């Protein structure tokens, strides 16, 4: 419900309540006073009725079914009730027992209501209780103020009742008119005051509406962003205006704070990104470190194993070194024999080379002979051709001669072919001789080199012998060192396992730190999102 409506309703309730309470209070007291005055009047009327009755006789008794006051017969005697009516108005009745014997109350048919009975609370109080009764009662359907007193005989027995009454309307007619008028006036006044109050409330609260509009522009705009650069513009000269000024002051302070918070937020975001990158890099580095440590551990395990094997083998090396020294001494002796054999081979090779050169020379001489044979064969062939020509020109007579010429030519051709083949073979022999000579020369060189190498090898072997001794000592040292190395590598392996464990813990910590930095980044982003709900600068136009 809107504040204006609430104010208006509250004012209406207050006005109506005020008027109602005031009116009710006044009417209540008026009603109370009327009641009091009615009671006083009833008492006066009843006292007067008693005075009139006692003036007839003070001794009350019932005789022959008649109520007597002294000698005054009450039954059917309407003097006294009518006298009361004349003096005060209202009704008056005398009961004998509980039966009306005289009254000024008229029935609907205009006759006096004699013979009717007293009932209800008045009967109980007066007849049964013997006490006076004051109160309201319905008489013939009309509300009355009533007053009943018991009539007692000399013995104090209740023999009748004295009654006076007056219509309530006789007392409350003016009151009822007044009440109606007051209520109408109150309603009218309430309506007028309600409208007036509503108008005044609305007028008074109109700056508040403007303030709400300005606040809506600041907070509840289309962009959904709280624009901290805007301020309350409509400032009235009342408390609401003071509130607007204070709101502006608050916005100023909020703008200042949010600007600082925005800067801090951006810095936090930047630092968070840097932290995240650093953590990521560190995580990667740690992961690499972890894997490297694991690789090193694995390598060190192999290394340790290898060191054990080396220690074992180095012991064997030391033993072999002793054996090698003996073998090298034998080898040196063998190398001396080898150098002697190489000298003998060289001498044999030189002799073979000399023989082969001689063979080449003789082959060349054969070649010359073959050239002569070839020339003779060519000449023979020419002669054979000429003979064939002659035979051909001689006709049938030269036929046999021609056959001989052909055979001679064939022989010459065969000789030429044979000599060519021999020349080819001699050429092959010469080539083989040349190759053999070259090969023998190379062999001689190699034999010489071999001899030199064997000499060098012999010298080197003597060096090797001394080196073998050193090697032997060194191998023993190596065996000792490798044993120490094995112990050291075991210690390194132990340390590496501790490093690996530490790296694993570090990796887990970094992963947690990475998760935290990611959360921090998310929070920073969330914070930036919150900050984006505030506009701290004027929108560029």
């Amino acid at each position, binding site marked *: 419900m809107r504040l204006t409506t609430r104010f208006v309703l509250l004012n209406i309730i207050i006005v109506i309540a005020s008027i109602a309470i005031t009116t009710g209070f006044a009417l209540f007291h008026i009603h109370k006073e009327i009641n009091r005055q009615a009671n006083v009047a009833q008492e006066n009327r009843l006292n007067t009725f008693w005075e009139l009755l006692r003036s007839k006789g003070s001794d009350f008794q019932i005789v022959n079914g008649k109520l007597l006051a002294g000698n005054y017969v009450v039954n059917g005697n309407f003097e006294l009730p009518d006298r009361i009516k004349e003096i005060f108005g209202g009704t008056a009745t005398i009961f004998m027992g509980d039966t009306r014997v005289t009254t000024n109350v008229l029935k609907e048919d205009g006759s006096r209501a004699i013979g009717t009975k007293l009932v209800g609370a008045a009967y109980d109080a007066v007849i049964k209780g013997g006490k006076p009764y004051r109160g309201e009662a319905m008489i013939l359907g009309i509300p009355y103020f009533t007053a009943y007193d018991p009539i007692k005989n000399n013995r104090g027995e209740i023999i009748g009742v004295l009654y006076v009454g007056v219509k309530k309307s006789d007392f409350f007619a003016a009151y009822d008119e007044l009440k109606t008028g007051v209520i109408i006036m109150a309603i009218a006044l309430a309506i007028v005051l309600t409208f007036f109050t509503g108008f005044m409330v609305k007028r008074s609260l109109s700056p508040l509406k403007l303030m709400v509009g300005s606040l809506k522009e600041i907070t509840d705009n289309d962009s959904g962003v709280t624009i901290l650069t805007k301020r309350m513009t409509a400032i009235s000269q009342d408390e609401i205006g003071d509130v607007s000024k204070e709101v502006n002051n608050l916005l100023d302070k909020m703008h200042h704070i949010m600007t600082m918070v925005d800067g801090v937020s951006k810095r936090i975001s930047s630092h968070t990104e840097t932290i995240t990158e650093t953590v990521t890099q560190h995580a990667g580095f740690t992961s690499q470190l972890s894997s490297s440590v694991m690789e090193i551990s694995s390598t060190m395990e192999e290394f340790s194993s290898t060191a054990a094997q080396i220690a074992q083998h180095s012991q064997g090396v030391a033993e072999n070194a002793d054996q090698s020294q003996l073998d090298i001494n034998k080898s040196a002796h063998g190398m001396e024999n080898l150098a002697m054999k190489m000298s003998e081979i060289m001498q044999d090779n030189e002799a073979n080379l000399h023989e082969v050169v001689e063979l080449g020379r003789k082959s060349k001489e054969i070649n010359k002979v073959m050239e002569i044979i070839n020339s003779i064969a060519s*000449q023979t062939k*020419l002669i054979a051709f000429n003979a*064939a020509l002659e035979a051909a020109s001689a006709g049938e007579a030269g036929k046999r001669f021609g056959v001989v*010429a052909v055979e001679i030519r064939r022989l010459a051709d065969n000789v030429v072919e044979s000599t060519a083949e021999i020349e080819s073979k001699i050429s092959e022999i010469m080539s083989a001789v040349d190759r053999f000579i070259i090969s023998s020369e190379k062999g001689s060189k190699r034999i010489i080199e071999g001899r030199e190498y064997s000499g060098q090898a012999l010298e080197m072997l003597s060096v090797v012998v001394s080196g073998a001794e050193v090697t032997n000592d060194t191998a023993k040292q190596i065996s000792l060192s490798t044993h120490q190395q094995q112990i050291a590598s075991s210690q390194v392996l132990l340390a590496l396992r501790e490093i690996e464990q530490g790296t694993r813990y570090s990796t887990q910590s970094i992963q947690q730190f990475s998760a935290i930095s990611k959360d921090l980044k998310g929070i920073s982003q969330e914070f930036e999102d919150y900050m984006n709900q505030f506009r701290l600068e004027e929108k560029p136009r």
Partner: protein
Amino acid sequence: MTVSGEIYPAPQDGTDDAAELLSAQKEQKKRNTLNLLIFSVAGVFFGIDADQVAEISAYQGEKGEDLFWFHEEMGYGEKAVRYSSPAIATIRNGGVAPYRVIIDSMEDIAEFKHKDIRLFPTLLEPYLLRRGIWGILPRNGNMILLLDFKRLYLERGGGNILI
């Protein structure tokens, strides 16, 4: 030399004299065969009538106005020709002028039948005759060009040759 593709008549039957018949048969055979000196120059085989060659001698580098290289006589052109076993063939020209040709790689002197010789078509014959080539003889999968040195000598302006 008689060069023709004519068919020589066979000796007639019914002669009484057997000697005459044998002589006629020999003459007939002579007419039906030809002795050729086969040689090759630069891988090409040539054949000349052995009757046209008076003598064959070894070539030893000598020179002379009557001595010619075969490839020059045949007009091999600028191409260099290598002789593996050159020999000088002395051509019979009736003693008018000496005419010697250096040939190469003599293969054989053999007798061939006329019917195995192929003559050139009429369209090509005049041109080839001017180069001294008058026929082709297939032998052992090779083609032998048949030469007439006397005609060649005349074509190069060597004067009249008595045949």
